[in-house]
């Protein structure tokens, strides 16, 4: 092939090219280090006289410049065209996207972070206490002596190693009091266990959230404030809270905390079982004997404990009808969160 043919061939090929990738290939084919023009260039030194060599050089250079120009023009043309194509294309943006594969954290974990955020703003520090616990911290030091009928409130799983599976997160109370000096503001969100058969609403394994606040002049008014702040946050501004007398041996007074049903605003509906209110939390002022057991002078300090069952609260809030979903490991459930 002579150089004129090459020029012609290059021109044609470039003209027919429809993509920038193909154009890049042609660039290499003709102008690359091992491209077509370089073969002609390599032949120059073999020409017999200076004049021919010079002439050939100029010609090759001319062809090179020309091919470069073709390539550039074509490149410009293709880019312009691609913009036109994009402008005139149609696309259904409402079509669902392709899955990106984000996983999920468990609803209880998400709720835990949410609760913790709220209470850490109020100055509460997160703590934890053992699941396998001694009778002392779970019961005796909380004013629930051995064989005491009030133990009927907690159906307990005992271990062969002499410990028990804690029945509530309140086993952290005396532990934290022993470790700290007032003001004490701690919270925990963790797993507890009861001797309980599993059904829609009950499980032998469940969570509790609990705060303990010990300081000078801690009052039922503080309990009300905590209840208001948190329950309004969970169930919305229209929620109201109320206290009822409730017996827990480690608080005095002890109260149950109700939230106004957010669905019917107290008129009574299916969700709240026509009650208009949900029993949602348990609370009270720490019993002076429990303060003493934790090494705290009840004359100088008072304390409050406040807690609830996260599963139950989530079930109400999110309309989950079966507590077993939480531990089912069923991805159809988990992937919804």
């Amino acid at each position: 092939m002579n150089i004129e043919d090459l020029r012609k061939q290059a021109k044609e090929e470039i003209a027919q090219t429809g993509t920038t990738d193909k154009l890049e290939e042609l660039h290499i084919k003709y102008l690359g280090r091992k491209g077509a023009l370089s073969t002609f260039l390599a032949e120059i030194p073999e020409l017999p006289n200076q004049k021919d060599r010079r002439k050939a050089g100029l010609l090759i250079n001319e062809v090179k410049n020309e091919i470069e120009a073709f390539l550039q023009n074509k490149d410009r043309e293709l880019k312009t065209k691609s913009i036109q194509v994009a402008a005139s294309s149609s696309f259904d943006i409402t079509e669902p996207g392709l899955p990106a594969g984000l996983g999920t954290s468990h609803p209880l974990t998400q709720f835990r972070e949410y609760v913790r955020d709220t209470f850490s703003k109020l100055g509460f520090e997160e703590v934890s206490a053992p699941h396998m616990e001694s009778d002392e911290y779970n019961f005796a030091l909380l004013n629930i002596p051995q064989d005491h009928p009030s133990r009927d409130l907690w159906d307990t799983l005992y271990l062969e190693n002499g410990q028990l599976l804690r029945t509530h997160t309140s086993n952290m109370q005396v532990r934290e009091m022993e470790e700290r000096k007032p003001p004490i503001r701690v919270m925990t969100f963790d797993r507890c266990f009861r001797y309980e058969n599993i059904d829609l609403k009950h499980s032998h394994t469940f969570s509790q959230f609990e705060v303990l606040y010990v300081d000078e002049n801690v009052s039922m008014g503080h309990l009300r404030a905590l209840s208001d702040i948190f329950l309004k946050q969970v169930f919305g501004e229209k929620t109201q809270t109320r206290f009822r007398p409730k017996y827990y041996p480690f608080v005095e007074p002890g109260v149950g905390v109700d939230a106004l049903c957010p669905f019917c605003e107290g008129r009574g509906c299916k969700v709240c079982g026509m009650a208009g209110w949900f029993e949602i939390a348990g609370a009270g002022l720490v019993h002076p004997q429990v303060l003493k057991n934790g090494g705290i002078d009840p004359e100088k300090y008072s304390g409050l404990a406040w807690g609830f069952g996260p599963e139950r609260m989530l079930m109400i809030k999110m309309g989950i009808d079966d507590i077993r979903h939480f531990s089912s490991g069923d991805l159809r459930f988990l992937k919804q969160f």
Partner: protein
Amino acid sequence: MKVPYSWLRDFINLRTSAEEVASDLSLSVIGVDSVETVGKEKVLNLDVTYNRGDLLSIAGLARELSAMYNLKYKVAEEVFKSEEGLKILNIKADSRLSKTYTLTKIENLRYKSTPAQIKSRLELAGMRSVNLWADLTNYAMLEWGQPLHAFDAEKVTRRDPTLSIEVRLAKNGEKIKTLDGSERTLTSQDMVIADRRGAIAVAGAMGGEETEVDEGTKEILLEAAIFDPLRIRNTARKLGLRSEASHRFEHYLSPENLIISLNKVLQMFEVYGKGKVTAYHLVGEDSIKSDPVVLRQEILDRAAGVKIPVSTVKDALKLLNFKILSSERGLLCWPPHYRGDIRITEDVVEEVLRMYGYQNIPAQPLKTSLAEAPENPLEDWRDRVTHNLSGLGFNEVRTYSFLSSKALLHSSPKELIKVKNPISAETEYLRPNLILNLTEAAQLNVNRFSSGKIFELEKVYPREGEYLSLGALLWGFKQPFLVLKGVLEELLEDAGINFELRPVKLSYLHPTQAAQIWVGKHNLGVIGALHPHLSNSYDLQDAAVFELDFDILSKLAQRFPEKHPLGKLIADISALSNLIAEVKIKDRYLKEEMRSVTLQVTFQSLERGLGDEDVKPLREKINGLIKKNHGIPRN
């Protein structure tokens, strides 16, 4: 406790409906589970808590309602007075077993069937009618809260003509046939009522068949007593004899209320059975003298968070039948005899506050002075790792803390912590790790999801003690070990942790694709493909799992891994000369306090080849920079 509403009206003129009463009770006294309609009757179902044993009676509830609504309590509470000429009975009762023990002999009884109203009230309250004598004692118990037991006096006299009754502990192995026809074998922990021939009743739990009252009974020996609540509780539980009576015996009972109850039931025996009291004897206390509880205003105000007027306090306590007296120490408060739960100031505080109305206590913001909140790496890393794993496409599961019976087949029970009183085979052992639970969770999903990635971050309970563990499992991926290893690498890289893998043989991991994860001297956990015997047993294809000790991980993890001062050093080196094309970390590891880092510096020029004369001065400058950043250069 079931309370027929009309029965309450014998005591007070309630003006509101049963439903309203139930609602008011639950707001200021005690929980009401439901209000049932039975024919024309309403029955309140009270959830009586241990502290309020006094509410296990119609009278007790009426006393409370009378305080709550400020309504007149209509029934006179008269005590039984032993008349002249009554015979004395021969009773022995250890005060540790029974603080008050009374027997009353009623003679000349004439049987008839139980009046309809008594029968129907018993049934509404959840008891069944037996015979007139038993019905009268049960009726009085429901109304007044004091359990009573009737012995057929003639049957007892036939056994022991001296009629010597004793409250004592049973002998080990002592036998008695109880009312229900069962033969019971007792231990020295159980209390019995005995004559000189042996036990005639299991105290507080059930009478003996041999001395049972029936339609032919002409003489009754009526027992009204207060027993040691804990012994009653243990015996009743052990023998499976929990009853309305034993339930009440487990709570606080007062001698004063006993004597009022006795008076009421004896009146009923006279009215319905034409009986005549011929003998009576009381052993032990007939009343309890107690010191007053002192209520200091500042303690009350502290608990309320608001000032409660003294007059309000006094009115509330008077309505609740407290005797009060102002003193320099504070308000002296004597609770009514039936309130055994009132022992300390805080108990009185609760009484005042619930009468004052919890709804009247205003919210009081928490003080703004913050307690010190030190960093909590465990919780911080818990969040971060959870987010990272879900970002990597893992779904968090939360499985039970127990090993299922199936998982147990793949474990050695001897190495596990055992539950003494399991609910079922599924709660017999605590899980020592997460791997089997994760495998089980994966199996549940495998039919619907051909591949999946799950993790759990919860406690595990090996014999050495519980700790927080992180387990992750994936299935349905080609080269699952390498896929999961990639996850591990990125997770630990994010936490600034360098690890090495050492091969390991474990029963649940693949024979060759399994390793321990080591960080310096710490064994952080294991990673491996699932052992074929597990993947077969759980139908899991191409599965791999890792499990890390999260307590250790959170201690080793660095929140801002090596940005300071290493980041600055790298920036400084890069800026030294335009001959330095790239600076990157090739390797790093932690050893005690020391951190060792290998930096790779690329020298490059686009214009010319570089020689030693170019690189050497730069090398010196780099060493200088390392020293300036408190490092020790090792070329």
